[in-house]
């Protein structure tokens, strides 16, 4: 049992940057380039870890502590989430609420760090991140409520370890709506392309990347790593909704999980390569549509269930 816990934590800590590598490779393929090696994100993180930092004289300890607090919060959310059908180290009824609020904590401290610099660019990014974050949080909560209602469980492990197995047969359309809505939330929360561009950060239209303009060296390393873990957790959640198949063999599960998540990363890469970024004032519409998808799903459940 303890070996499985160890395996869970190891995947959580080590696997995430690989997703960024896969997305990068996919984008390079669409652009007709060879692209950076798959392990490039790891090299980047290692490089940043050994760089000296520059700090603004305007900033306080909040600026330096925020990357660590946010990464710690995201990783703590990770120990609630079942990965590759492995039972997570901690589970309890109502941990879905803690899961969402830990991401909120991570976002809040980064927003404060951005405001700490006193730069108007970072203030702008912080304002947008807080605004869009509020909406993606509603969609996220509502989706989790639907999943809780379907599985009649209040914990992530209850929902994803078998709670949904019969739901695809009974209320498949609802789950499709939830998956679509969740995919939009994933793109927003992880600042992927139709909403935000993770590669540039010097334009006025940027959201997340502009908040971390002043972070450098090890702080930037933590922020990038935290973002990778966040993307990984959201992707894990999405594939756990889609693929409810479980085999008793742990290694088969593991292989399947890696295949699923790599597939999702390629999908994100395809979306990023084929779509242009939305104009900033259109982003709320996308968020509303994510929310409305989940509401429609909810109504279907009400009609079916009663």
């Amino acid at each position, binding site marked *: 049992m303890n070996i499985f816990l160890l395996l869970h934590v190891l995947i959580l800590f080590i696997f995430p940057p690989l997703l960024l590598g896969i997305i990068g490779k996919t984008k390079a393929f669409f652009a007709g380039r060879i692209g950076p090696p798959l392990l490039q994100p790891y090299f980047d993180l290692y490089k940043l*870890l050994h760089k*000296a*930092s*520059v*700090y*603004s*004289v*305007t*900033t*306080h300890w*909040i600026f330096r502590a925020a990357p*660590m607090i946010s*990464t*710690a*919060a995201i990783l*703590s959310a990770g120990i609630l989430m079942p990965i590759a059908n492995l039972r997570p*180290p*901690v589970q*309890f*009824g*109502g*941990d879905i*609420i*803690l899961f*969402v*609020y*830990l991401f*909120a*904590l991570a976002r809040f401290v980064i*927003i*404060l760090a951005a*405001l*700490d*610099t*006193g*730069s108007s*660019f970072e*203030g*702008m990014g*912080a*304002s947008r991140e*807080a*605004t869009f974050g*509020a909406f993606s*949080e*509603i969609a996220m*909560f*509502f989706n989790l*409520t639907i999943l*809780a*209602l379907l599985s*009649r469980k*209040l914990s992530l492990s209850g929902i994803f370890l078998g709670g949904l197995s019969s739901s695809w047969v009974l209320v498949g359309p609802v789950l499709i709506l939830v998956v679509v809505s969740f995919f939009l939330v994933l793109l927003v929360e992880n600042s992927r392309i139709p909403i935000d561009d993770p590669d540039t950060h*010097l334009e006025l239209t940027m959201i997340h990347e502009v908040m971390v303009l*002043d972070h450098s*060296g*090890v702080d930037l390393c933590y922020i990038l790593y935290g973002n990778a873990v966040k993307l990984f957790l959201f992707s894990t959640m999405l594939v756990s909704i889609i693929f409810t198949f479980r085999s008793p063999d742990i290694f088969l599960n593991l292989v399947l999980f890696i295949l699923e998540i790599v597939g999702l990363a390629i999908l994100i890469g395809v979306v990023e390569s084929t779509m242009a970024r939305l104009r900033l004032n259109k982003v709320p519409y996308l968020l509303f549509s994510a929310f409305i998808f989940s509401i429609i799903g*909810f109504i279907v459940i*009400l009609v079916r269930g*009663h």
Partner: protein
Amino acid sequence: MFFLLISLFIFIISSALIFILCRSKKISACLFLWSLVTACGFGLWSAASVLCQKVTSLPLTNVEFRLTSHLPLGEFFIGIDALSAFFLLLLFIVSLAAGIYGYGYLREYEGPRNVGAHFALYHLLVIVMVLVLVARNAILFLAAWELMTIISYFLITFYNESEAVRKAGFIYLVAAHLGVFCLALMFLIMGAQAGSMNFDQMTATRFPLGLAGFLFVLAFVGFGIKAGFMPFHIWLPRAHPAAPSHISALLSAVLIKIGIYGLMRMIIIVKDFPLWCAVGLLIMAVISAVGGMLYALGQGEIKKLLAYSSIENIGIISLGLGVGMMGHVYHQDAVAFIGYTAALVHAFNHAMFKGLLFLSAGSVIRSTHTGDMESMGGLFKWLPWTGHLFLIGSLTICGLPLFSGFISEWLVFRALLEGIFHLDILGIILLSLGIVALSLIGGLAALCFAKAFGVIFLGENRSGQEHHYNEDDLMMRGPMILLAAICLWVGLFPSNIVDAAFQGTQAITGMLVPEALKAAIIIPLLLVTRVLLFGGSIFVVLALLRKFSTQGYQIHLSETWRCGYAKITSRMQYTASSFTQPMLKIFRTILFFKVETVRPKGYFPAETKLSSSVKDVSQDLLFRPLFYGIKRFSRKLKWIQSGHTQTYILYILFLLVILLIWKLC
């Protein structure tokens, strides 16, 4: 009960002494401080001793005290059950903290007001609030309630040389009296039904469902005005900025909770309600919660922002209360228990963190002499203590893990989800509306308090000039540290307060909460602490890694990167209103959000302007036209009031004749 009477006795004696000695500022302040500390100590002891009793069988313990000698309109009948004790607990903690802070706050005051009288009134306010909480007789309750309004009016209008303060006080007085009218009517109907004005006999009476619904509407308006539910909230955002900060803290942390207490007491007395009462309460709760938060976003004045956020939190508390009532109506006891418990825990937590926020906002205003956030910035360097305490308050109010706000929001969410599992389709729709509202509030609160903390304390000073600010002394810092410590303590070790809230829930429902249910709530909260512990250790590992990897490197200090712009001033930072503009724009139709600009003219424009505003719908579109209408109507009846006493005597004669005819017919 004995300790509570001692505490009340100390308060009464000392407030009389302070009134007598109020000429000397020094003596009265000293007396105030010592009597406050001892009396609150005794009071806390009495509340805690009731809450610590383990109740294993019905009926529930209820310590009572009666004076048998009859007063003119009923007996002096007081009692403490777990519900009263729970609210007494938060009352005494906040009164203690706000009182000590007020002592420090007014020490430097050199104005024309009599500080001694202010202190004496503060004691009187605490006495009548305690009486409201322990009264077991409707007449006593109403008398204490009325005194509470009048005394708090005097405390709010401390700076009465200002026109705005007088007006705020007046609006408060009018609003509060509208509430008293409803409450008096409600208690008279209850008393007529029960044949007695004592609460215990009222509780033993059965009220028909239709009447219960009517009584609930009266209670909702009467107590709701005090609590600040959304259409009746207009006194709140005016009175809070007008009052001195320790009084705003007391108002927001305790006084509006007494409105919630009243609603709970009313639920105990009437017991069974029609379904539409619970539905109505839930809808009003959602409106107050979301509306309060949206208006808070649009505010540029720190205490006004906090006042609107109090409305939001009252909304969250009544969401819990509404779930409790829903559970009761549907006979789902587990749902009712979790709902009421969530409401109580959030009431306690809100008292602590809102007290903390108002006090630290008071410190900011004391040192900057303004409440306008747009002219602040970079205060973290000057006011490190206040800054850290305000940060703790902000993290708590956003419901982020590690602090107490998370515990109570978790409980409210848990209650809503439990309700969704066990109620029918109407319940599911309403409660999922609650979930949407609560998650929206979570995000909006983060936006609102990132703005408040970020704009006041972080960045550079926006006024463009160098200022020197003085940090508070220990007298003002101490109470804030106490409140912040409670926020952290409840966030990490929530089991005590949740247990106490379960006792209060038992008093509301009159049933024992099964131990299995208690465990199902408390054990997850303990696991939350375990997750946070894991997060904490990750934080330590990251910090160590950071230390080792950058060893030997020199840390460069420089200016904030300006993205290539050469001449940047601190006035170009993001302001409070620009920070919330995207969100306000999304909700512009509800909020009547307007941005007005004067466009620059000519090649060398001299001056240009931009202002944005949010309109409070219930104030500008509901109450103002209503009161103007009443004024216009009553002007038409002016001829009745001639000013001659003879005419008035004639009116009395007419009335008597009419009554005689009515009686004879």
